[in-house]
C-alpha cells in the first residue's frame, strides 16, 4: 500500500524551508513556472470557445463518474475484443504484482517505461528493482531524476527544479559526456543516443494512459518526445497502466480533451504525438492494467469526488504561488501542487495531513483547471476533515482555539489588540523573533498607535 512506501520525515513547511534557503534558486523556479502559466494563457486565449470547452470537459467527466461502472465494463469488453488482456488491481501492491507477473513471463529483465504518474503513485520502479528488473524511464526529464535517484518534482516537467549545469554534471557522471558541457541541445542529443540503445534492446514497454475510450476500447498516449511510441513499437509486450478514472465515453470526446490538455499543460496547441492504441500489432501482446487504489472509495465522497476528473496537465502547479516557491519535492507525494494536495490525504490522511495547508486558498488553481475541479474549495474542506479527525498539529490547534476565544469576546479582543500594539511598538523583539511563525521571511508591520475602533470612538465625538 501507498502508506507503507516511505516513512515521512518532514512536513511541507519544513521541506519548503529547506528549498527556500537558496533565494536566487527560488526566484528562478518561480519565474520558470510562471512563464509556463503565461504560455498557457496565450494558448487558451486563442480559442474563442475556451471557457465553453472547459465546461464541456467538466460535464463529460461528471457523466463518466456517474456512469463509471458501465463505462469500465464496456471498455473491458471492447479492449478484449481488440485482443488486449485487461487486468484489475485493487491497490498499488496488486498493480505492481500484476506488472511484474507479465514481465516475469517474458523472462527478460530490461524494461523501458514512458511517463506514468500512476506508476509513480504505486512506486512501481522500486518494486520492480527489488525483483531484479532494470526499468529505464525514457522521458528525458524522468531519466534525469531517475539517474539522480529522485522522484519527479512536477507531473509534466519532472526535472523543472534542475539547472542545466547540474544536468551536465549528472550526465558527465552517468553517460560520460564531457565535463562542464551544459548545453541543452548537446545534453538532449547525448540522452537520445543513450536511450536509443535501451529502446532497441527492451522487449517490454510500460506506458501510462492519458485517455481510455469506453466505446472503442482504445487508449491514447500523448508525448512530445516520442518515447512512448518508440518503446511500444519496438517491444514485444506493451503494458499500459491506468487509473480507472481515465475512461471517457466516446472517441469524439477526445476532441474536447486533446484541445485542452497540451494548451493547459505547456501552452502547446497539441503534443507532438497523440497515439491511439486500439489493437496490438500482429505478434505483439498488449496488456491494460486498471487500477483502483482508493479511487472507488473517493467516488462516494460528494466533497472530494471531483478530484477524479483530473487529466494531469499540471496547470494548477504552474500557477500556484506556494508550489512555485516551495518546489515539488516539498509535497512528499508522487503528485505535487494543489491537485496532489487534495489527492494525497484521500490515500493516507495521517501522512499527508500537512498538504491541504500548503496553500493560500487563492483559487488560481481552480481558475486554470481544464476540467474545472474545485481544487481550492477541496483544500479548504480537507482542512476541516483533518481537524475533525485530529490530524492538525497542536500548535495550529492551540492557535486556532486561542483565536476563536479572543474573537468571541469583544472586550478581550480590544484588550489583546492594545497589548499587541504596545509590544510591537515598545518591545518589537517580542514579535520579531523566530518563535513567531509569521515572522519567517517577513518583517512584521509597524503597529499603529491606536486601533480603528479607538480612532472611530474619538472622532465620532468630534463631529
Amino acid at each position, binding site marked *: 500500500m501507498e502508506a507503507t512506501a516511505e516513512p515521512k520525515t518532514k512536513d511541507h513547511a519544513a521541506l519548503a524551508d529547506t528549498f527556500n534557503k537558496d533565494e536566487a534558486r527560488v526566484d528562478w523556479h518561480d519565474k*520558470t513556472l510562471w512563464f509556463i502559466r503565461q504560455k498557457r494563457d496565450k494558448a487558451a486565449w486563442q480559442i474563442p*470557445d475556451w471557457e465553453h470547452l472547459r465546461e464541456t470537459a467538466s460535464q463529460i467527466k461528471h457523466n463518466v463518474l*456517474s456512469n463509471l461502472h458501465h463505462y469500465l465494463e464496456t471498455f473491458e469488453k471492447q479492449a478484449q475484443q481488440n485482443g488486449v488482456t485487461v487486468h*484489475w488491481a485493487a491497490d498499488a501492491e496488486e498493480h505492481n504484482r500484476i506488472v511484474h507477473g507479465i514481465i516475469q513471463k517474458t523472462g527478460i529483465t530490461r524494461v523501458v517505461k514512458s511517463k506514468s504518474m500512476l506508476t509513480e503513485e504505486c512506486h512501481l520502479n522500486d518494486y520492480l528493482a527489488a525483483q531484479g528488473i532494470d526499468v529505464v524511464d525514457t522521458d528525458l526529464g524522468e531519466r534525469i531524476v531517475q539517474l539522480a535517484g529522485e522522484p519527479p518534482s512536477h507531473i509534466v516537467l519532472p526535472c523543472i527544479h534542475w539547472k542545466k549545469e547540474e544536468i551536465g554534471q549528472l550526465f558527465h557522471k552517468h553517460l560520460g559526456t564531457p565535463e562542464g558541457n551544459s548545453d541543452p541541445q548537446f545534453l538532449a542529443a547525448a540522452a537520445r543516443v543513450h536511450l536509443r540503445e535501451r529502446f532497441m534492446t527492451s522487449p517490454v514497454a510500460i506506458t501510462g494512459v492519458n485517455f481510455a475510450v469506453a466505446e472503442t476500447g482504445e487508449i491514447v498516449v500523448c508525448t512530445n518526445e516520442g518515447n512512448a511510441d*518508440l518503446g511500444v513499437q519496438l517491444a514485444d509486450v506493451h503494458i499500459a497502466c491506468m487509473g480507472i478514472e481515465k475512461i471517457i465515453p466516446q472517441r469524439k470526446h477526445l476532441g474536447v480533451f486533446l484541445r485542452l490538455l497540451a494548451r493547459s499543460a505547456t501552452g502547446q496547441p497539441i503534443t507532438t*504525438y497523440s497515439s491511439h492504441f486500439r489493437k496490438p500489432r500482429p505478434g505483439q501482446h498488449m496488456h491494460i492494467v486498471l487500477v483502483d487504489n482508493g479511487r*472507488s472509495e473517493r467516488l462516494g465522497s460528494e466533497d472530494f469526488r471531483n478530484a477524479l476528473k483530473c487529466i494531469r496537465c499540471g496547470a494548477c502547479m504552474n500557477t500556484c504561488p506556494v508550489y512555485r516557491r516551495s518546489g515539488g519535492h516539498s509535497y512528499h507525494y508522487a503528485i505535487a501542487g494543489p491537485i496532489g494536495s487534495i489527492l494525497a490525504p484521500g490515500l493516507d490522511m495521517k501522512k499527508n495531513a500537512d498538504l491541504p495547508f500548503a496553500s493560500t486558498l487563492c483559487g488560481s488553481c481552480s481558475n486554470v483547471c481544464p476540467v474545472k475541479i474545485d481544487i481550492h474549495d477541496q483544500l479548504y474542506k480537507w482542512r476541516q476533515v483533518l481537524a475533525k479527525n485530529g490530524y492538525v498539529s497542536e500548535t495550529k490547534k492551540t492557535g486556532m482555539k486561542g483565536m476563536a476565544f479572543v474573537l468571541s469576546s469583544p472586550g478581550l479582543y480590544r484588550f489583546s489588540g492594545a497589548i499587541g500594539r504596545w509590544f510591537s511598538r515598545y518591545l518589537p523583539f517580542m514579535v520579531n523573533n523566530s518563535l513567531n511563525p509569521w515572522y519567517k521571511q517577513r518583517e512584521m508591520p509597524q503597529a499603529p498607535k491606536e486601533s480603528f475602533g479607538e480612532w472611530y470612538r474619538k472622532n465620532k465625538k468630534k463631529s
Partner: protein
Amino acid sequence: MVSQKQKEVMSSREQILANIKKNQPPLVSLPAATQSTTSGLPDERVHKFVTVLQAIGGQVVPVNSWDAIAAYVSKQFPPPARTINLVQELANDHPLAVLENDPHQLESVTLALLKGHFAVAENGAVWITDTRLGDRALPFICEHLALIVHADAIVPTMHDAYERIAGEAPYEFGTFIAGPSKTADIEQSLVLGAHGAKTLTLFLLSGN
C-alpha cells in the same frame, strides 16, 4: 464498503466494480456534442495550419505536383540516405519500400515518406493510421519524417477531426503527429529531435 467476508471471495475486478456501483453518484447526462465555432474558409484553414505547424518546428513545403515532391526529396536526401517511401504516387522516382517484419531494422532509416489522411488547422497535427505506416515504428524511429497532406484535407479543429475519423475505415493504430519530436526538459530550452524524428517536412499538395 464491501464487507471483509465478501472481499475474500470476490476478485479485485468484482470488488472494484461493486464499490463503484455503490459509490457512483446519480446519473448525469452527457453534454451536447461540442461543435467548433471557428470553422473558417478553406484558405483560412490552410493559412492557420501552415502558421501553427511552422511555429511548432515543422517545415512546410507547398507543392502542386507529385513530381515536385519527388524532386525535392531527391535533392534534399541524396544517396547514401536510406529513404523508405510508402507513397504509391512517388513510386516512379522513389521505389516503394518492402519492409521486413522487424521494426529494429528501421533504425538506420534517414527519411520516411508517408501520406497523411488529413491535417488539423488549429494545431498543425497530421492524422495517419497503420494502413499507411508500413510498420508502426517507422514515423518514430526514422531520423527525418516527411508527410504529404492535400490542401483540401485540412479540417479546422479536433472536433472536425474526430467527425472525419468516424467516417473513415477503422484503424488498429492511429496517431496525430504535430511537428518534429521535441523536449524542453532541460531548463525549458526547446530542443528539436528528442527520441523521434529530428525534423518534420510537410508537403502541402494543391491541385491534382
